């Protein structure tokens, strides 16, 4: 068992799936010789050749649109979009085609595609390199949306995504790409898409989060000294509402934490579902700690924008005091 960071865990998953299945190919901007701007695909072109690790033209719609064609022909393309802020040009191909091809053709054509996208803020990057658009894609039927928060999860979820017969957007929280390491099995393993992970158990309050925010939540829980259950959603669609329901039915209180803007963020869906499912158990309204309803500011102020342990801590206190 090796001790890997998130970048290495993803790299390993890609190697193993490519070795196992020659329908798998990688495509994107700068992923070849350069190994991607975050070096996630480092060494893969040397290992698998230029036919399987392809540097494409600088055109995101082109990347996804051709990947859809590759997938319709039965391959398993894994396109990389360099930053989540550049999903925009590919939005139409993702939502009008990848998400719809199976239902449009009643299964005659399917799009087994895994779109890898670094996501989120906190790395002092320029504009459009720090956003969190997961709710946009969760609102688009036909897609699956995954966001790991640890190296172990990253590997297992990526392998599941690659093997999934439907299109998956696999968001990689860039803030924790190299933040920590953990033991990651050498062998291949999968983690189910649609199942949350209980990071810590507790009885007083439930926190639901995903991606890099999970780390802030762990910190906040530690700081609080309270008995808090932390659920890492892991996958945004389908999402494990049963796990959330079970936990909130127990604790009666919930805080949801994410980086995306508050309004219509995925926290709204979690909150609405909790109301629907746990109404009689709720002792306080669900609290949402999220990005503000502003554009993510340039990096001088990004830490002011991002939910941190302190803001989560205040929400915990407010919720417990309700």
């Amino acid at each position, binding site marked *: 068992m090796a001790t890997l960071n998130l970048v290495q865990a993803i790299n390993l998953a890609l190697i193993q799936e490519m070795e196992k299945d020659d329908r798998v190919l990688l495509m994107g901007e700068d992923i070849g010789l350069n190994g991607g701007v975050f070096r996630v695909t480092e060494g893969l072109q040397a290992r698998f050749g230029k036919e399987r690790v392809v540097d494409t033209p600088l*055109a995101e719609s082109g990347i996804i649109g051709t990947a859809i064609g590759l997938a*319709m*022909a039965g391959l398993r393309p894994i396109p990389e979009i360099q930053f989540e802020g550049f999903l925009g040009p590919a939005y*139409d191909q993702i939502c009008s*085609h990848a998400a719809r091809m*199976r*239902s449009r053709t009643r299964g005659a054509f*399917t799009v087994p595609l895994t779109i890898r996208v670094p996501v989120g803020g906190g790395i002092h990057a320029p504009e459009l390199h720090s956003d969190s658009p997961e709710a946009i894609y969760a609102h688009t039927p036909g897609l699956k949306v995954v966001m790991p928060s640890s190296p172990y999860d990253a590997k297992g979820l990526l392998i599941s995504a690659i093997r999934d017969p439907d299109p998956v957007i696999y968001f990689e929280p860039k803030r924790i790409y190299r933040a920590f390491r953990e033991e990651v099995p050498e062998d291949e393993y999968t983690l189910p898409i649609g199942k949350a992970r209980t990071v810590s158990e507790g009885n007083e309050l439930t926190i639901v989060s995903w991606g890099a925010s999970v780390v802030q939540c762990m910190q906040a829980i530690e700081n609080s000294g309270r008995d808090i259950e932390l659920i890492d959603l892991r996958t945004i669609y389908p999402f494990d509402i049963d796990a959330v329901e079970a936990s909130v039915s127990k604790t009666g209180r919930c805080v949801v934490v994410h980086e995306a803007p508050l309004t219509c963020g995925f926290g709204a869906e979690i909150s609405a579902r909790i109301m*629907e499912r746990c109404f009689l158990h709720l002792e306080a309204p669900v609290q949402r700690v999220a990005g503000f309803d502003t554009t993510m500011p340039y990096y001088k102020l990004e830490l002011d924008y991002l939910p941190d342990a302190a803001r989560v801590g205040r929400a915990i206190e407010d919720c417990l005091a309700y």
Partner: protein
Amino acid sequence: MPITTAYKTEIQRVSILDEHGNFDEKLGKDLIPDADLVRLYEAMVTCRVLDEIAFKLQRSGRMGTYPQNMGQEAPSLGASYVLNKDDWIVTCYRENCGLFWRGVPMESILLHWMGDERGNAMPREHFATPIAVPIGTQMLHATGLAWASKYRGEKRISCTFFGDGASSEGDFHEACNFAANLEIPVVFVCQNNFWAISSPGKVNCSAPTLAQRALAYGMPTIQVDGNDLFAVVKVMRDAAAWTREHGKPHFVEAVTYRLGDHTTADDARRYRDQAEVELWKTRDPITRIYDYMKSRKLWDDSKEATTRERAAVNANAAVATAEGIAEPHRQDYFNAMYAELPADLATQLATHNTHSLGQTEEAAHVATEALAKAHASHH
């Protein structure tokens, strides 16, 4: 040498059988065996007849919006005729004739426009993709499909069709650019019919030709009289062969005209001159072949009558099949979303509700059953 030449090029236009009946023997001889020509003619007639029937279906409320193909039968037909049966054909919605030649059942196309996804559930052996509603997007799929062939070392190419309007979309550019730079064998066929709904050609391309779009990518390109089936067959055969041999894309501009409205929701008299339509009627691809066959004594009135009759019978049979299909079920659109129906969606299906209070115990039970069934059917 302060001023030098960085690039120089020239684009050709091919015509074999023109609207006045002139036939170029050198290019045209032996191009299409007579027996094939008769079959191709019948295919065009059938497509035209279906258009007329579809129009009436729409007007009488038996079908939704429908885009007639009238006048544009030749480009896709010529392509379909010369392509291998397992080359991908990636179309928009004015390529019925080519799709039917390929073997796509007429009822598939009808069902699509009748608001039924089963029309798109084409058997894979047709190597045809479903009608693309969002304009200009399908050329990227064609590029991806052909890329897959290259990846696998197959000789299969893609041939994709789109309109002059579609050539304005960014995806068109990206599809050509990917194919050219990554060396992917695609034949890009632009059906330049001079109109994108009500926008005259020059709103979408003010350059002298649409063929020159391809010069941006250093791609071989040619213009063809798209109402001349002979010329289309020659140009498409050459382009497909070149593409297959070189593993690189080729562009074809087929100059044509839609004789009908944009769709049944459109009234072309609002924006275009009847005189223009009348002019193009004299260039009709069907009458051109008819006259040619007559002049060659391949055709006579009785053959024509038989053909028209058979066309009507076939088209009406397709309508009957399309209209005879069972009503679609609610579960069709739920079950089609993913390989496995997510639990939450199963509940929505079982309860036909999106509000939790309506999701009674009983409904939840039904949902669980549905889910279990969906799972089972995939393992």
